[in-house]
């Protein structure tokens, strides 16, 4: 059976479509504002005419490539192509400033490749048990997981933890704007219809990271505000470093990406922030993070590509998509009359297995494109700024518009970018804002569900949490993380030493 399926994987149409999908995913994600989910939406109608396994392999390629592509612009011009590439910019761009862009890009592609491989291997080998683990996370556990994710702001706070807490709180607040679906109440919309849909985290991140960067660069002549150097490095050195020297970091980050990917509705952003925070927390030199430490890139990139395999697990096993991108793949299958979930493995196991094996092809394709593309990617640094700013801004405007096909989103992105510049001038760290924004809905909605559930069971909120074993573990983890990050903060350390 396996041999027969493998023969059906290594055929021209599967190979060609998986590779094409990966290439499109890389290109879309590298363009600020566009991401894998947008590319998949755009290409969804194209897949209707394909056989189901081809449609899935193509969209799977877009998804896998999309998780890597965002890192290219993040490293080279400090503009993450998508939310998942945010943490890659923290260390990737400083490496570019140090003339180590090639090294950073190698770390990015190899970490993405191995992380992606880790995720897909778990998908092939452990789908049923991992899916059942994901189901153990109910609303109270999801809420606590979101709160654990929020503690990462301790890592991103810089020198003033209160400014970071303020920014995270601002992020949590901004995400509440819009119509509350349970009560139909409009929150902070001020009668503006465009705001009833709420603010999209993609749009705000685009504003903060892309528009702000471009606005700041106005007036500069070259893309790089430094003398461009391209220090050569052997790919094998990077591979050895990831797989041998930093095995633990790589495995831990990939595992976090995989696990957070499995949990429905959380998404790649949370996985990346958590993996990056954990890498910094456990590093012997946390002060080097944000200043060009390749460990930051390894953590972020291996986690975001491991998310792909993770997010596919609940989709294939029980029909519950782990991310918006995977939901679109589910839609592609439904139009072929195949419903994801247990039926998929009993009625069309060929489609499921060919797709899973073809995902390995997308990883190989991504690796080849990433490795051989490095030489060409660096050309972006040689472009004159007066060409680059309008091009990147035009793509960002298009990207902001295409998220919901709304002009108001472009305005939101531009305002976010302008406000971000002012905040940065005042030395407020902007990353905690995105962390708060991304986690806000997860925490709020599950908090409300937990309150409902505790009320129905006639228990108080705290007792309800503590009587659930998994919740209890997460409460302990949360307290542990808060303590750790508090002691990690340079100011607290200094006070303790004094």
């Amino acid at each position, binding site marked *: 059976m396996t041999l027969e399926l493998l023969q059906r994987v290594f055929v021209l149409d599967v190979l060609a479509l998986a590779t094409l999908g990966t290439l499109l995913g890389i290109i879309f994600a590298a363009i600020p504002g566009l991401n894998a989910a947008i590319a*998949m*939406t755009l290409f*969804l*109608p194209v897949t*209707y005419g394909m056989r189901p396994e081809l449609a899935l392999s193509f969209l799977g390629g877009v998804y896998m490539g999309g998780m890597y592509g965002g890192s290219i612009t993040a490293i080279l011009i400090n503009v993450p192509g998508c939310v998942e590439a945010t943490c890659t910019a923290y260390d990737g761009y400083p490496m570019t400033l140090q003339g180590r862009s090639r090294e950073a890009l190698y770390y990015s592609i190899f970490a993405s490749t191995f992380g992606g491989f880790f995720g897909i291997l778990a998908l092939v080998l452990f789908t049923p048990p991992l899916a059942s683990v*994901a*189901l*153990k*996370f*109910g*609303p109270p556990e999801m809420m606590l997981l979101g709160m654990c994710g929020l503690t990462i702001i301790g890592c991103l706070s810089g020198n003033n933890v209160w400014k970071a807490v303020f920014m995270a709180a601002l992020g949590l607040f901004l995400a509440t704007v*819009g*119509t509350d*679906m*349970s*009560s*139909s109440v*409009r929150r902070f919309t001020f009668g503006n*219809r*465009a705001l*009833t*849909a*709420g603010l999209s985290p993609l749009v705000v991140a685009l504003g903060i990271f892309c528009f702000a960067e471009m606005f700041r660069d106005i007036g500069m002549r070259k893309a790089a505000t430094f003398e461009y150097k391209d220090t050569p490095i052997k790919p094998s050195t990077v591979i050895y470093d990831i797989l041998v020297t930093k095995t633990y970091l790589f495995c831990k980050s990939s595992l976090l990406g995989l696990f957070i990917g499995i949990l*429905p*509705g959380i998404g790649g952003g949370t996985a990346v922030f958590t993996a990056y925070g954990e890498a910094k927390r456990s590093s012997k030199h946390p002060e080097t993070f944000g200043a060009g430490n390749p460990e930051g890139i390894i953590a972020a990139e291996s986690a975001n590509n491991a998310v792909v395999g993770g997010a596919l697990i*609940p989709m294939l096993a*029980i*029909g*519950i*998509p782990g991310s*918006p991108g995977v*939901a*679109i793949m*589910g*839609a592609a299958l*439904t*139009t*072929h*009359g195949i*419903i994801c*979930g*247990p*039926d998929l493995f009993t009625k069309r196991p060929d489609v499921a297995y060919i797709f899973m094996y073809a995902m390995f092809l997308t990883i190989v394709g991504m690796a080849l494109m990433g490795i051989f593309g490095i030489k060409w990617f660096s050309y972006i640094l040689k472009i004159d700024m007066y060409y680059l700013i309008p091009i990147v801004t035009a793509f960002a405007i298009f990207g902001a518009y295409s998220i*919901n*096909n*709304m002009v108001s989103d472009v305005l939101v992105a531009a305002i976010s970018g302008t406000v971000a510049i002012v905040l940065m001038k005042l030395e407020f760290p902007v990353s905690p804002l995105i962390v708060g924004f991304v986690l806000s809905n997860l925490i709020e*909605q599950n908090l*409300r*569900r937990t*309150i*409902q*559930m505790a*009320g*129905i*069971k006639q228990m108080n909120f705290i007792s309800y949490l503590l009587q659930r074993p998994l919740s209890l573990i997460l409460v302990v983890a949360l307290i542990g993380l808060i303590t750790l990050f508090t002691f990690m903060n340079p100011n607290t350390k200094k006070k303790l030493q004094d």
Partner: protein
Amino acid sequence: MMKKIVLCILFLALVLSLCSTPSIAAPAWPTKTITWIVPFSAGGNADNISRIIAPYFSKELGVAINIVNQPGAAGEIGTMAIAEADPDGYTIGVINAPDIQISCIVNDAYDLDFFKDLNYLATYTATPISFYAPQKSEWNTLEKFVKYHKEHPGGLLFGEGGIGHRVLMATVMDYFGIQISSVNFNSVADVVAAALGGHIDAAGAGNQVISQFVSGGWAPIAWGGTEKCKDFPDAPLFADMGLFTDFLNVMTVLLTPKDVPAYVNERLIEVANKVSRIPEVRTQLEAINCVYYFTSGADMDKKMKDYYSQIQTISEKYKSAIVLNN
């Protein structure tokens, strides 16, 4: 002489050409690409249905149809975009009933006037909602479920994935005189995940997700629609108990802005009827687990308005259960 003959021929040709064109003809429509707005994200049910139906419309109308997703605020953004589009027939779209009626009734801030802003033209699907419970639970039949609630009012965690499900819950509460406590999730997929993880005790969800529930040891305890569930014939139909829930069947309805010329609506209804006779349409819709149900024109319009009144009656009585305040 020759000149006169030529002139006569030209005059005759002119007369003939004028005669061949009706003096009061409907303007040619459509002549350019039509935008089809789906007020939900790509991959959702309304999007899937639109992407199945739209190519047949495109073929019949002879122009391209561009599907545009405008999600946000439970469909409100996209629905308003359709209602406020130029009424030239080049912007049409779909909405989901009964969500649109419920939103208009319970959400005072909704700008849409349900009766004045849109024309409801046709639907191809009407997927019912059912009640599910774990097979090994104490409340694994509707009778036991009702009995449990009489003894423990609101004592079970009842998962639901949207306002339509809460209206069904309110309808059942009204019919049996019981109190059900809901736990609200964002989508049916989230309800299924919570059910399979054992985080809720019972659930209201569409018939289309039965296989996912069954895989986790759950089964329907009451079945929506007019035909019994093939795999669980013991599950009673709501209709058999005299509880008619047709007005809550999920329909993806084709619409146009109110002031669109009559000939546009007529042509779209004509095309909708023609498309309904294509066997592949039904096969494709059933393949994505939708229940095929076609209606169009005046019947569609009447249904939408009748269902509005039914939903209004139940919503007014059970507003606190339908519009959650925590």
